[in-house]
């Protein structure tokens, strides 16, 4: 562990581990069998050495990263890490595990619940016993230093674990999330002894298994955690900058919340929901004002990238007004909806007649004050309440009169009656936007659950129900809807509206996309590339749909949470109305009310969030450690890693990030992916992901794994093989890496894929982000959509290979986030398509549920799709990504590209599609592995499904290697060959790249002599594809002497039209990479220009 930690560069983790190790044993025992197993394995392998190594590592880390520690984030992390280490101490390996586990499983649940406020421990407890324990241990151990970070991470749920994982991963070089934890142990072992490697592998397997379980459980959480993790790692290396957010709650209270500057919207949102004890959170959102324009905080994007105002002022609001509030499960949800509607009414957004104002006001009184008291209640008490924008004495009298008739009605009943009346209002849930029609006449666009309403003044002059709308798009300040031809019409017509400006046009477009998806679709539409053939933003709604949230709500099983109702007086008036007890602001109380209850809810709700989080996780991964971050960003189309810049926007279709440290990131990503699809997650949970991890571990140990790995695709670089004898087999193919880390890696990879698939754009970005760290977050991807179209025209693939060598802790962050912004320019959205997608999505769900089945399917698919394998094997994060990407655009090429990037890792990854088939064959022998993979894949699948369900279906996830080899070849190949050619349809993107993480735990940590040779702790390849760009990141962690070196190779394939300024895109990619990994230095940049230029020289 210590070595690993040290290698990982994350000082925090190391300390934590050291601390955790002691504590961990307990935790592990408490937590779950898996952990225990891991611990045992770790112990068996080399407890003492590990401890020694830990201490050494810690020292090293401290030395190497003192600065980091000094910096806020890092400093914080280290404390956190120690606890983990302590826990792990029992099982040296455990620390990583714990960390990972925590991050994975615990994080998710915890994130929502505990993370925000308390240390990870509490959160973890909520989410998962293990995690909680771990978190607690960590917290306790390093409370002082790491608490903030820990908290954040915990909040994220997975974030902390991820970080830890990342650390581990760095050491192990395992890419995948689950693997990461395992990898850490492995690394430790390596450091301590080669012999231990086996044990480490086993441990890893166990870890992976556990991780898988955790993943399943935390899938939802993972995304969040991932984000956090990603962020945290960065922070660690850098300094974690905390920003104070002020969220105005629906009751008018202020909710101060400190978040990392890089935190994503989802993190904050979950914290708020947690404070509210709200489970049915999908109807809500956070809004902020930019330039007097209300915008919804994109949960998948960093907050700081959205809010221009230096002071983060947000408001918690209802985003989707349920057409039938009576179908809401919990009273608290209805209560919040009531509060929102009262705001809407008082502000005039929801116009009402006099009678309705009075009636609704009377229900509000009944809910807050209870029965009318003729003795004490006088008319003046009511004047403290505001029922209407302008209320008269007459109205107040009417309110009192009506209030008297509600005698005996409980607050919940009064709320229900309130909603039953309010929902009938014609403007209920209608989001109005100023616009002009084609003739320049001022109109209002009203977006609602049923479609788009056109108002002129107060008159409804037209209405376009969602089924009538074929496409929604915007260009500049124009907003267009393509209308399905009517019965008597032959041609579809397009209606255009002029918005005040570009931003408002995009805002309307996004709102339409979200509302359509939420209300009209069964599952969120994957922002698949296929659709992207048209120009436009890739933005898609990533949260749960109403159907999904309803389904999830049915699972809510907790006693009705207690919450206090705040007097409506506060809204506008003084507390004169004192008689009303309610007057007292219960804001605080409400949030506090139930912590435990949240967990279940969180999981449910978190799913969506998790998805969102995934990107963040990815991002986090990048920052993770600094040793050496090799970022290979293969061509997105070709392979992950590469960033394709199309046209104006840089789109990162798939970013495969190979980061040793990134391993964590990958894991995170995977986790995120998993989380992305809640359903999947749930299903996943059902399935024992941990098992797969175990299997993986076993596999890794066993030769079979190697075979599997081979089958999967690319053989990991020789280096990776070396560390693990089993892995050596891997050398042939990625499988070796996979074996070692396979489980984890596979899981991670799967997660990554999921992320991509789930949030088409986002996912893609996310992978990148993970690689790069936060920035890359999928956000970029949205842009890709438009660009994708362009891509076909001219694709210039620029491969930027950046080798960042950092000593220890430096996190390498590659920010691909910028890409996301490009989206803004234009966006198209095909509701119909979505419908189809919805169907697909539905299918996906089943898939998720039946991951095994999926796997089976996948195998066949894999045959068809060789690419996936390559991904897996390839260091290969890229390869998997590539696989996905390739279908989309140019999978093959991308893979190739990757190889160059990582010398150690080898380009072996190149595993072309062919390899994949092999993998399948191999896979067959190890059904178990397949299962594991499946589990791992599931998340992916889910994510994929969400993104491109249809595609995924066709796609086969190749799982090779039974238990032994962790190699997880989850390749989701797009069935649509056509799509593959250029831009894989959105669905295509679904194809999951296989992340290949080659983790070599060499003694290098100790052996300073070996410059490169050092001990290869982990090698991860993360490939993320966006329509325009594919980013492959290879993260290699090596231990040299006491220093851990993390090399990140990023391959960014930018595919774009001639119009695109490739140089600029490249510059941006490098810039982002630097931003993401501030601690790391860029040692080499290789630019390959395909099409135009073969390659450009390296540095």
């Amino acid at each position, binding site marked *: 562990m210590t070595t690993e930690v040290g290698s990982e560069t994350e000082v925090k983790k190391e300390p934590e581990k050291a601390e955790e190790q002691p504590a961990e044993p307990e935790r592990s025992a408490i937590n779950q069998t898996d952990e225990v197993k891991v611990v045992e394995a770790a112990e068996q392998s080399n407890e003492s050495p590990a401890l020694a190594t830990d201490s050494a590592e810690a020292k090293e880390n401290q030395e190497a990263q003192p600065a980091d520690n000094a910096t806020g984030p890092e400093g914080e992390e280290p404390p956190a890490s120690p606890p983990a280490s302590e826990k792990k101490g029992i099982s040296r390996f455990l620390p990583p595990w714990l960390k990972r586990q925590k991050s994975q499983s615990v994080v998710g649940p915890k994130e929502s619940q505990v993370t925000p406020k308390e240390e990870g421990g509490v959160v973890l407890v909520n989410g998962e016993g293990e995690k909680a324990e771990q978190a607690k241990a960590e917290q306790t151990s390093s409370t002082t230093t790491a608490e903030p970070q820990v908290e954040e991470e915990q909040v994220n749920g997975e974030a902390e674990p991820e970080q830890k994982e990342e650390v581990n991963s760095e050491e192990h070089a395992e890419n995948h999330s689950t693997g990461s934890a395992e990898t850490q142990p492995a690394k430790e072992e390596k450091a301590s002894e080669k012999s231990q490697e086996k044990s480490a592998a086993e441990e890893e397997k166990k870890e992976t298994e556990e991780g898988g379980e955790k993943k399943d459980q935390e899938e939802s959480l993972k995304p969040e955690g991932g984000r956090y993790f990603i962020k945290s790692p960065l922070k660690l290396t850098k300094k974690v900058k905390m920003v104070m957010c002020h969220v105005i709650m629906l009751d008018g209270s202020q909710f101060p919340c400190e978040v990392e500057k890089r935190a994503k919207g989802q993190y904050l949102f979950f914290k708020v929901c947690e404070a509210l004890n709200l489970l049915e959170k999908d109807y809500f959102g956070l809004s902020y004002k930019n330039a007097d324009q209300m915008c919804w905080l994109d949960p998948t994007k960093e907050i700081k990238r959205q809010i221009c105002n230096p002071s983060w002022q947000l408001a918690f609001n209802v985003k989707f007004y349920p057409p039938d509030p009576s179908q809401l499960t919990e009273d608290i949800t209805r209560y919040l909806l009531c509060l929102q509607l009262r705001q809407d009414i008082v502000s005039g957004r929801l*116009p*009402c*007649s*006099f*009678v*309705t104002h*009075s*009636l*609704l006001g009377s229900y509000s009184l009944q809910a807050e004050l209870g029965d009318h008291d003729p003795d004490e209640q006088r008319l003046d008490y009511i004047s403290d309440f505001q029922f209407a924008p302008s209320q008269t004495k007459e109205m107040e009298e009417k309110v009192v009169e*009506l209030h008297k*008739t509600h005698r005996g009605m409980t607050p919940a009943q009064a709320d229900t009656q309130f909603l039953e*009346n*309010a929902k*009938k*209002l*014609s403007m209920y849930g209608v989001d109005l936007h100023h616009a002009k029609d084609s003739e320049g006449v001022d109109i209002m666009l009203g977006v609602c659950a*049923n479609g788009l309403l056109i108002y*002129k*003044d*107060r*008159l*409804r*002059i*037209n*209405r376009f*129900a969602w089924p*009538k709308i074929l496409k929604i798009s915007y260009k500049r300040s124009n907003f267009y809807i393509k209308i399905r031809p*009517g019965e008597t019409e032959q041609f579809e017509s397009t209606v255009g509206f002029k918005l005040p400006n570009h931003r408002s046009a995009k805002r309307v477009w996004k709102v339409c996309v979200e509302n359509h998806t939420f209300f009209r679709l069964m599952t969120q539409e994957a922002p698949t590339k296929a659709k992207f053939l048209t120009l436009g933003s890739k933005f898609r709604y990533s949260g749960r749909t109403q159907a999904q949230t309803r389904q999830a709500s049915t699972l809510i099983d907790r006693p009705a949470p207690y919450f206090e109702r705040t007097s409506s007086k506060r809204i506008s008036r003084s507390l004169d109305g004192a008689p009303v007890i309610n007057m007292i602001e219960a804001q605080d109380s409400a949030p506090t009310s139930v912590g435990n209850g949240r967990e279940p809810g969180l999981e449910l709700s978190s799913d969506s969030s998790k998805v969102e989080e995934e990107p963040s996780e990815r991002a986090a991964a990048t920052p993770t450690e600094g040793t050496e971050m090799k970022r290979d960003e293969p061509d997105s189309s070709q392979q992950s890693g590469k960033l394709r810049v199309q046209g104006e926007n840089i789109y990162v279709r798939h970013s495969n990030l190979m980061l040793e440290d990134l391993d964590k990131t990958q894991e995170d990503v995977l986790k995120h992916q998993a989380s992305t699809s809640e359903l999947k997650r749930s299903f996943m949970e059902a399935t024992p992901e941990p098992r797969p991890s175990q299997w993986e571990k076993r596999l890794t140990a066993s030769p079979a794994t190697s075979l599997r790995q081979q089958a999967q695709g690319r053989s990991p670089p020789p280096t990776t093989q070396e560390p693990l004898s089993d892995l050596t087999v891997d050398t042939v193919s990625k499988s070796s890496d996979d074996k070692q880390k396979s489980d984890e890696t596979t899981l991670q990879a799967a997660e990554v894929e999921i992320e991509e698939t789930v949030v088409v754009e986002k996912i893609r970005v996310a992978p990148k982000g993970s690689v790069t760290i936060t920035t890359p977050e999928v956000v970029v991807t949205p842009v890709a959509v438009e660009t994708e179209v362009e891509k076909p025209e001219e694709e210039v693939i620029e491969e930027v290979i950046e080798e960042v060598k950092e000593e220890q802790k430096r996190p390498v962050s590659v920010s691909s986030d910028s890409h996301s912004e490009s989206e803004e320019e234009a966006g198209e959205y095909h509701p119909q398509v979505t419908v189809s997608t919805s169907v697909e999505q539905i299918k996906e769900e089943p898939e998720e549920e039946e991951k095994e089945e999926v796997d089976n399917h996948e195998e066949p698919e894999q045959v068809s799709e060789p690419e996936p394998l390559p991904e897996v094997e390839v260091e290969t994060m890229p390869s998997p990504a590539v696989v996905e990407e390739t279908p989309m655009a140019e999978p093959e090429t991308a893979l190739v590209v990757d190889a160059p990037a990582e010398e150690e890792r080898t380009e072996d990854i190149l595993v072309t599609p062919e390899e994949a088939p092999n993998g399948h064959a191999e896979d067959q022998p190890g059904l178990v592995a397949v299962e594991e993979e499946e589990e791992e894949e599931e998340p992916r699948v889910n994510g994929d499904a969400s993104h491109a369900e249809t595609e995924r279906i066709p796609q086969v996830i190749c799982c090779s290697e039974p238990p032994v080899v962790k190699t997880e070849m989850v390749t989701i190949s797009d069935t649509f060959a056509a799509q593959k050619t250029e831009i894989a349809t959105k669905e295509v993107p679904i194809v999951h790249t296989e992340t290949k993480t080659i983790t070599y735990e060499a003694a290098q940590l100790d052996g300073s002599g070996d410059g490169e040779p050092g001990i290869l702790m982990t090698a991860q390849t993360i490939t993320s594809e966006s329509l325009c760009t594919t980013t492959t990141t290879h993260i290699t962690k090596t231990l040299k002497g006491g220093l851990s070196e993390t090399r990140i190779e990023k391959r960014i394939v930018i595919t774009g039209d001639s119009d695109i300024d490739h140089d600029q895109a490249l510059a941006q990619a490098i810039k982002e990479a630097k931003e993401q990994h501030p601690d790391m230095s860029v040692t080499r940049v290789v630019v390959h220009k395909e099409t135009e230029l073969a390659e450009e020289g390296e540095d």
Partner: protein
Amino acid sequence: MASVLPYGRFTHAVVRGIPETFGKVEDEKNNKVENGETTMDLAKAQRQFGVLTGALRQKVGLQLIEIPADPELPESWRIEDVAVIQGDTALITRPFKQQRRSETEAVRRVMSELNLTVVEMGAEEGGSAGATLEGSDVLFTGREFFVGISSHTNYRGAEVLADTFRDFAVSTVPVCGGARLKNICSMGGPDTIIISNSDGAKKTLRMMEQLTDHHYEVLTVPEGAAANCVYVRGPSKVDYLLHPPTEECPESFPAFQKLTDYTLLPTACSEASKLGGSLTSFCLLINRKTYY
């Protein structure tokens, strides 16, 4: 919404007698176009009015309030035009014809006596804003308003209506196939719209269907005159439909018979139809029973 009830729950009906000057004002147009005969049968019109009011009071069981006829206001019998009532709010309209605007005085008085909240349209618009609205262009379905933009009703008038009844969606539709919206369609039940079979009416219906968030049953009748009926769900929970008799609309009767469990009340208004009037023109239906 407090005021939302299924369409048809009425307790009161306000009517206004047939003046001696019945048909005099519009002789030029209607006689030429409609009948070619210039003479109106005042007695027959009054008889038919009596049958209608009798049916509303005795058959349906509504409280009937009859405003005396005013010879100075030859069109005052078309009381539907001068007010739009929903819930306990009555919007006094601003008819297109200047000479009809004085018809509102008596109606306003009655509305006040019924404790309805009276909203003046002319006042809001200053009278000169150009807002015109006539009740025969307004179709209230119980869930929303459709306002037909016709020669007598303009967008400004519709806006005033929308501002008055804020709880409801107010959609504007073109009036095709008839002079007034109510000439081509009317309510035949809580969720049933009776509409004429003409192409124009179909066009209007399509627009209505596009604009609405709700689903309505559509009862298509072959004859235009049959599209205007009076539906009331009486106090005894019986569905009553006043419709043109078979003499006037022989082909539409089978369509009405599709309305199961309805009590069909054939009511002649042949004289009024000569002036572009119809069954709904004669009455303002009000629900004064508190529903909350």
